[in-house]
């Protein structure tokens, strides 16, 4: 229990840390392996669960002090240098150093734009939703700091279309911030001007990819752009544009107020700070947990209350549907460690699966998702994911063939590294890891001629639009226009 450590020491994580004088891991070892949260971006939400999203509460709690300090006492370059020194890396998935990204924006080209990627859609991830709904002022403050650093006078929040409540809260928060003079002309009495434009998406996962997001924001189909040029050089409306994730921006106020060293006390050398992990699946307490980077996955599972009663861990998705599977919790949750283990931290969505999970079904659900969300721009992704679903469907329905596992791996090879954007690569990584790690289970489906898990196939096929391969024994031919159907929902 995370509370145990705190009770024993009777202080906050920070106080305890000071008292114990060691790293979080060392202290935990000394304390007998108990984990607890370390909150930077979730602190206000945790402390004021009833009204953290109101401007009264936020300002009372110190919101906008970081933005004020940056604008009134720091040069834009000083802000960039500070964020570089903090080592803050993008929390949306790619983990690119934030300060470095900012410094790519040419100094002499105006106007520049900040675009907030609040189009959270990576399966398993629900951190930005919580941050946007419950602490919109932290986001606005982060935007203000980023805008000052790169000297952008307009910022766009690309809010996922399905986030009705989140959009209302952001809308209200921006309006309140204008009224108090935190936005608009002459922010904090300076001559700096900042407008925030709240824009709603309309249901397309690919718009979480930054260049597709920009196309969507310009009023086009959300399809990724060729890079270079990168958005920092030529982005929205052809102007230098910094695209940052909600959680990334949420770290900025505290970095400005407390400094790079303060931020670096958590996490690892290359992945400093904390990460909000969205934990879901077969655990007792699914929720967002903010922990120092490098926290062991075993501790994350402990925070989430362990696996549900009477069940054992089978597989873990450590960083959203795009991340290859793991089968052990013996790993540190940071960008480098997961990369070394052949997976990735991604958006920080951790899905724990127990022994009741059919991995063919898991692969099918994941691949169906990528097939549905493939934007159709490039052939490997559009066709490859479609074929993957076809083959997985027939395995799950009991019509699989012995060669299907190799066929799936071949499809993955045909997509990986050949797709236009990371969506296709991700689809291949996820599918490949399912087949490689659980090949025996796939083979069992084929040799039994059915799914060994009770009723699974029936439920699955009934739910899938246009489900049922109906092609057993015949090489399926895509119908005219069929792959693009996936993008044209009725």
């Amino acid at each position, binding site marked *: 229990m995370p509370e145990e450590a705190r009770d024993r020491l009777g202080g906050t994580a920070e106080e305890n840390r000071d008292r114990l004088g060691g790293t979080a891991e060392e202290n935990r070892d000394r304390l007998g392996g108990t984990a607890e949260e370390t909150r930077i971006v979730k602190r206000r939400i945790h402390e004021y669960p009833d009204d953290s999203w109101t401007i009264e509460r936020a300002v009372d709690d110190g919101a906008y002090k970081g933005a004020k300090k940056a604008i009134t006492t720091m040069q834009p370059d000083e802000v960039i240098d500070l964020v570089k020194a903090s080592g803050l890396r993008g929390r949306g998935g790619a983990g690119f150093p934030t300060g470095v990204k900012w410094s*790519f924006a040419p100094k002499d080209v105006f106007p520049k734009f900040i675009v907030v990627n609040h189009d959270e*859609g990576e*399966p*398993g*991830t*629900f951190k930005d*939703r919580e941050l946007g709904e419950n602490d919109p002022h932290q986001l606005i403050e982060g935007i203000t700091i980023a805008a000052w650093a790169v*000297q952008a*006078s*307009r910022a766009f929040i690309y809010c*996922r279309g*399905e986030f*009705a*409540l989140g*959009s209302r809260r952001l809308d209200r928060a*921006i*309006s309140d911030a*204008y009224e108090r003079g935190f936005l*608009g002309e002459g922010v904090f009495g300076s001559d700096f*001007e900042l*407008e925030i*434009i*709240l824009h709603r*998406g*309309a249901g*397309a996962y690919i718009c979480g990819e930054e260049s597709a997001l920009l196309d969507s924001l*310009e*009023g*086009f*189909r*959300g399809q990724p*752009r060729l890079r*270079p*040029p*990168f958005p920092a*050089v*030529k982005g929205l*409306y*052809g*102007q230098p544009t910094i695209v940052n994730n909600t959680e990334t921006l949420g770290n900025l106020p505290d970095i400005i107020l407390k400094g790079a060293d303060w931020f670096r006390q958590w996490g690892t050398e290359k992945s400093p700070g904390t990460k909000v992990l969205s934990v*879901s*699946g*077969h655990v007792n307490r699914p929720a967002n947990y903010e922990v120092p980077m490098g926290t062991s996955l075993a501790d994350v599972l402990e925070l989430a209350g362990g696996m549900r009663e009477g069940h054992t861990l089978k597989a873990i998705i450590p960083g959203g*549907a795009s991340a290859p599977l793991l089968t052990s919790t013996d790993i540190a949750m940071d960008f480098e460690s997961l990369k070394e283990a052949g997976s990735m931290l991604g958006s920080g*969505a951790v*899905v724990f*699966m127990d022994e009741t*999970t059919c991995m063919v079904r898991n692969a099918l*659900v994941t691949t169906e*998702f990528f097939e549905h969300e493939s934007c159709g721009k490039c052939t490997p992704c559009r066709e490859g994911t479609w074929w993957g679903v076809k083959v997985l469907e027939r395995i799950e329905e009991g019509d699989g063939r012995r060669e299907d596992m190799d066929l799936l791996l071949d499809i993955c090879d045909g997509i990986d590294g050949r797709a236009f954007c990371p969506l296709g690569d991700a689809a291949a990584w996820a599918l490949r890891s399912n087949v490689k790690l659980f090949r025996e289970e796939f083979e069992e489906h084929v040799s039994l001629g059915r799914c060994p898990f009770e009723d699974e196939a029936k439920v*699955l096929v*009934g*739910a*899938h*639009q246009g489900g049922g391969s109906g092609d057993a024994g015949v090489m399926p031919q895509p*119908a005219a226009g*069929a792959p*693009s159907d996936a993008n044209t*929902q*009725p």
Partner: protein
Amino acid sequence: MTTPAPNPYEQNRVQREQQGRAPRDETERVFDDELRAKAAEIVAKYPNSRSAVLPLLFLAQSVDGYVTEAGMREVAEILGQTPASVLAAGSFYSMIKKVPQGDYLISICRNISCTHMGGRKLVGVVEERLGIADGETTADGKFTLETAECLATCDGAPTMQINYEDFYDVTPETLIEAVDRLESGREVKSKRDKPVRTAKEIAYETAVVGIYKKMGDDMKTRTTGGEVLPPDMAPGFRPSELGTTEDGGASDA
């Protein structure tokens, strides 16, 4: 998936006829004066009017519950674009509907966490209770069922949305209760205690979000911090002009 996609607007007419409803006269105006004024406010939010395509499609959707052909043409007219380019953009997004929808859209998550927690069984529950399959609308025009990709509510798996309000830990019982209440005109509240509103109301809310006192006419004319918008931000600019390596000068790799 075995036949080519039918023309959604043709499908429309057939569906309306089957439901005994007269097809909308496609030359009829969708935006009244009030909505036209609202559309102008939305357009004024953006440095380039083209960015208002999605909000304006939502605005059209707030009138009929879906974007009619007339609505799509009118959005094109307001923005000075071709109807084809508006349709091209709009048809990409799942929240922009091109066929008649029910008052209440039930979206059941079909992604990883929800599937593993039994979410897909909920689809069958709705199918049985309302007699509609994934993507269909009840004959009385009250409910539409769809399966959705991850709704970012995995901590409450299995989850669903009704008109984009969240429902956590959904069971067949709570699902049927919600349907029963909506059917008889009673209020249903989401996980976060928000009453479910109709699809048209939500489309309107989505369209008009982010219009502040600071914006409007004064903002259109104001330059930003002494900066003047470059010519390639003028209407007619296309992102396809970007993305070429010759003019990139990208410093990052």
